[in-house]
């Protein structure tokens, strides 16, 4: 007789009801905020949140200014500056969500308690990303304001396509959250190098998504990677909504209209979201079966 008992995924249990979703998300967001911010006083936390992103932006500004001799009105400058500013969301949201697994499993050693609590785990992880999203939003805002005030980044508030901006931003954040969930799933299954996984993914996307240089600069054989990434279209839409003139200066995506870009972004977001959900639940299922939920690697 075959005594092996196969466990299978119960699809219904994967979708939370509204009350569970709201409760889990709210509490996870609050918890995430406490973890992110209460290690110091608000003043030092504000400095921490501002200095890091501004320094990252300043590296690019100095690199640009010593070569171009301060010609900040050239379209390449807002391309680089805004791409870099909005890219902060990638590190914040995507890495923030997957980092919750590392924090809870390795540092606080509470992941097993989260799994026995009456919460919906993916919602909990998404909620944990809210704090990093908030801090990233502050950093993006300050970086852009700094660029407008001191570096001639010309954003005409009356000419900004606000509708396109907010819709793109919203879809982009959802897409990043889904990618974060995918990473969180993978993190559940690995013991080694979990600390690097978020940084390496964010670093690779920084290189391939044309965040700080047009995709045409990449060698031809690497460009398709950028075209497959939704972040490439997301950043282009954000740039177009804020400074439309940038789009005409670079041929990479100029053949696409805003509607077409939005369609591509939406399509890729849906594909990545489905992919993320499948990967997360599969990894979670494997982690449960292998008894890895309460693993402490001390790696």
């Amino acid at each position, binding site marked *: 007789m075959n005594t092996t008992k196969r466990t299978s995924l119960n699809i219904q249990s994967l979708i939370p009801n509204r009350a569970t979703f709201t409760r889990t998300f709210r509490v996870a967001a609050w918890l995430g905020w406490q973890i992110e911010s209460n290690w110091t006083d608000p003043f030092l936390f504000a400095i921490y949140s501002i200095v890091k992103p501004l320094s990252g932006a300043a590296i690019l500004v100095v690199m640009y200014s010593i070569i171009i001799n301060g010609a900040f009105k050239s379209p390449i400058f807002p391309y680089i500056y805004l791409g870099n500013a909005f890219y902060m969301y990638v590190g914040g949201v995507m890495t923030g969500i997957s980092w919750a697994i590392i924090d809870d499993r390795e540092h606080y050693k509470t992941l097993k308690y989260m799994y026995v609590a009456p919460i919906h785990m993916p919602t909990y992880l998404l909620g944990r990303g809210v704090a990093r999203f908030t801090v990233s939003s502050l950093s993006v805002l300050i970086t852009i304001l700094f660029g407008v005030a001191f570096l001639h980044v010309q954003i005409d508030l009356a000419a900004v396509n606000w509708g396109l901006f907010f819709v793109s931003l919203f879809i982009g954040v959802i897409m990043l959250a889904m990618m974060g969930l995918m990473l969180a799933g993978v993190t559940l299954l690995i013991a080694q190098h979990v600390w690097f996984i978020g940084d390496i993914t964010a670093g690779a996307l920084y290189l391939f998504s044309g*965040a700080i240089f047009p995709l045409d600069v990449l060698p031809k054989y690497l460009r398709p990677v950028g075209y497959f990434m939704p972040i490439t279209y997301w950043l282009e839409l954000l740039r177009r909504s804020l400074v439309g003139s940038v789009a005409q200066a670079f041929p990479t995506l100029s053949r696409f209209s805003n509607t077409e870009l939005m369609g591509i972004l939406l399509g890729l977001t849906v594909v990545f979201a489905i992919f993320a959900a499948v990967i997360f639940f599969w990894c979670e299922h494997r982690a449960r079966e292998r008894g890895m939920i309460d693993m402490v690697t001390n790696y």
Partner: protein
Amino acid sequence: MNSEQSSATSEKWSVEKNTGLRFFLQTVIARAYPRIIGQQREKSWMFFDILLPMLAVSAYVFVYRAIDAPDEYVGFVVMGGAMTAFWMNVLWSMSSQLYWEKEMGNLSLYIMAPNSMMAILLGMALGGLVATTLRALAITILGGWLFKIPYEVTSFGQLFLVFMLAMVALYGMGMLFASLFLLLSREAWHLSNLAQEPVYLFSGFYFPIKSFNFWVAASASIIPLTLGLDAMRQLVFPSGAALGFLSVPLELGILSGLCVIFLTSAKLLLAHMEKLAIREGRLTESRR
């Protein structure tokens, strides 16, 4: 058991203990050993430690290419990217190391053991330096090959001297920070995280430090990598001297001074902080 048997047993089990300088060096080697051997046992670390800086280096190289920068700037980026490995090592494996040890419960064992904490820090530095040099070398060679960078070393002797002095001063700084971090808890992680980008900026990891005004560059020179990197670029790239902040001999002199200052300060501060941490009961606390 008669007295002869007793004396024979005690002789059999007696262990000759090292003291003084021999004991100090033994501790240094013992602490350096896991860092060097650990790398051989877990080679995948090497892959990730090279890949992560290479991604940043590649992104900055393509930015320079997008704005048609001269080729030597690409070389500056690769060299800066290689040196980030040392800064990361000093931040995460020197400065905040005692915080990790505290988290894992090893710190109290270090303090209880009869060896010098200075020897432990020196061992950590030595092990970290050897392991990181391999990574930095790999990044330099890989970056040079990928982006076709023409290295033209004008003086290997000076280059070696600059590198060694910069490393001694840098790891001395790491030892100084490690003693400061003895008092820290959860904030240690955040402070190390905070010290990355600003230092990349002010030390000129991706552009010549001469681009800043004199006083900004002079202030940034307190971080040994600033002058070390500047001098190395002058010695490795044909146009490096024209873009250098100070002359190489002067930078060598300042780096020598920084070595003395950081190592002495680390010794004094470590003794003070250790006493303070014991008095305030911070050695075994774990505020998560």
